């Protein structure tokens, strides 16, 4: 389903995809402990988040550091729709995405006219404002207490077969499907002429404008799209954990996404996916040093940004003797 076009790396990647897909599909059987399935599901949510953030940070070069706000707004939308209208996941997925996209569009009117530190600080502030709203608008959001009780869907096929996605294995497959669709969509966008425009914007905004490309328009499209997918991730998360709270707006979530993007390699789609997987496994492996986690992670981010800004994808390309950013031929993952 994911179309790989282009002569250079497709053959190798195609062969790697098959066993990978196989493993992903039979994961619940391989993994005995329910807890690891839980980790896998959370990982999938973060895959969507990391890739969506990469569209902005990696492709457009826009340092949008309030990204978790779209995730959180999406989660709240799902929660409220479910609790007040009984809307199941199938509806809240889209509704959350659209809601987050709408907010992004409005914010974009304000913030996409500026660049540099003003842009960065405004996006950070935006997430803080989201948190304050969630915290203080107690009538709707119940404030600090949050909104519990959001249930996963029950799928009834032809009235005969019933799948209750409350089972972790079932939700895993659901999340896998949704994540695959989202990542595939973002991949197609990034490799389309829309993606080319984003890259042009990143490389030289003035020249891009002079080349006939509507830079404000493309920035808005990227902003809205990435928010849409973040919102979808929010709904997926809400129906899984069953609970939303203002904590979802905390900057730590954005930091996590940033590390994933940088670890895997920004400006690629594969990079953030790899980064998300690694960075979900890593904290689990570091369970012992739970206290020092944030210190270790922030140190990691620091080292990555300063010494390996292209992340694992960049290092990989350096070893295979080719620089990814420079070739940028269409069809590269």
């Amino acid at each position, binding site marked *: 389903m994911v179309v790989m076009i282009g002569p250079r790396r497709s053959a190798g990647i195609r062969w790697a995809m098959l066993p990978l897909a196989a493993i992903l599909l039979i994961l619940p059987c391989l993994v005995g402990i329910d807890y690891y399935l839980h980790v896998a599901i959370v990982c999938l949510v973060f895959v969507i988040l990391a890739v969506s953030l990469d569209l902005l*940070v990696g492709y457009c*070069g826009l*340092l949008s*550091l309030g990204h978790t706000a779209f995730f959180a707004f999406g989660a709240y939308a799902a929660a409220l729709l479910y609790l007040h209208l009984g809307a199941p996941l199938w509806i809240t997925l889209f509704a959350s995405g659209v809601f987050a996209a709408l907010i992004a569009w409005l914010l974009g009117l*304000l*913030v996409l*006219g*500026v*660049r*540099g*530190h*003003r842009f*960065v*600080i*405004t996006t*950070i*502030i935006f997430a*803080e*404002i989201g948190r*304050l709203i969630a915290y*203080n608008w107690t009538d709707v959001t119940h404030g600090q207490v949050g909104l519990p009780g959001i249930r996963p869907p029950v799928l009834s096929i032809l009235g005969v077969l019933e799948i209750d996605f409350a089972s972790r294995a079932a939700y895993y497959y659901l999340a896998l499907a949704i994540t695959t669709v989202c990542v595939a969509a973002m991949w197609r966008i990034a490799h389309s002429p829309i993606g080319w425009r984003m890259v042009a914007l990143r490389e030289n*905004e*003035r020249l891009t*404008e002079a080349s006939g490309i509507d*830079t*404000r328009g493309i920035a808005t499209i990227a902003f809205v799209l990435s928010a849409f997918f973040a919102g979808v991730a929010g709904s997926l998360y809400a129906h899984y954990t069953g609970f939303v709270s203002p904590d979802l707006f905390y*900057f730590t979530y954005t*930091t996590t996404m*940033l590390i994933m993007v*940088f670890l895997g390699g920004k400006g690629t789609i594969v990079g953030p996916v790899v980064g998300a997987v690694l960075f979900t496994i890593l904290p689990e492996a570091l369970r012992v040093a739970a*206290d*020092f986690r*944030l*210190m270790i*992670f*922030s*140190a990691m*981010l*620091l080292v990555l*940004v*300063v010494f390996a*800004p292209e992340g694992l994808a960049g290092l990989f390309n350096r070893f295979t003797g080719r620089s990814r950013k420079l070739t940028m031929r269409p069809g590269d993952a």
Partner: protein
Amino acid sequence: MDFIPQYLFNGLVVGSSYALIAVGLTAIFGLMQIANFAHGQFYMLGAFMAYWFTRVIGLNFWPAAAASVFAVMLLGILLERTLFRLLRGASLSSSVLATIALSIFLENLALHVWGPRPQKIPSPFEPGGIEALGIFTTPDRLLMLGITAAVVVCLHGALHYTTTGKAVRATFQQREAAALVGIDIDKLYTLTFAIGAGLAALAGVILGMIFVVQPSMGGVATLKAFIVVTLGGISSFAGGIFGGLLLGIAESFGTIIAPSFKDAVGFVLVLMILLYKPDGLFGKWS
């Protein structure tokens, strides 16, 4: 209407701390083109060092304050010589992300060393308030105002009447030319960074004495400092000082609406500035 002077005064006190922190931020950005998102941690560390020197080591307030500022300045020099030297000439994304990472690291380090509970720095003054001109205040708050006023005067004097100060101003405007003229850029950067860190630490020491000391205060301070700089413009010291005072006063009056509205005031101001005076594609070139 009687309460206006009181709110104004309170706002000035908090605003002074914002001004001190913002000045350092402006200096670092203007001189080195690095958006230092870890700057607020100097404020936090200044406060914690003062706490440590007084409560743990047992010094009196004044020597503890001096030692704290000095310690943070040393840290600043160390960071400048290592990390920030690497970040020179880096893209904005790199410096933003690297300094954010540094900020998180320092905050969690403090959390680890001193714990999350708010602490208090003992005041050198006798407890009790002062009342004058219808305003109720305490000696430590007056100290904050006094120190800030002194700093502003010294800063103005240094920038305009000393050779080093003039070098700073020259480098601010024209970095390459300054290097050509023989100004030692490296030493200048280190000095400016150290002073910026020191000012933030000073604000931390005094405000930590007036209010409380906790690891999260650094992140908040950074946010406030960038709000100030976004409002007042990042290219002038005066902008940083006036912006800081303005934010403090605005927040103070904001509490009239609701106590929790204090933080939102700064956010709202930033959004309004973006609406009415955006820095656009064309704003840059017009």
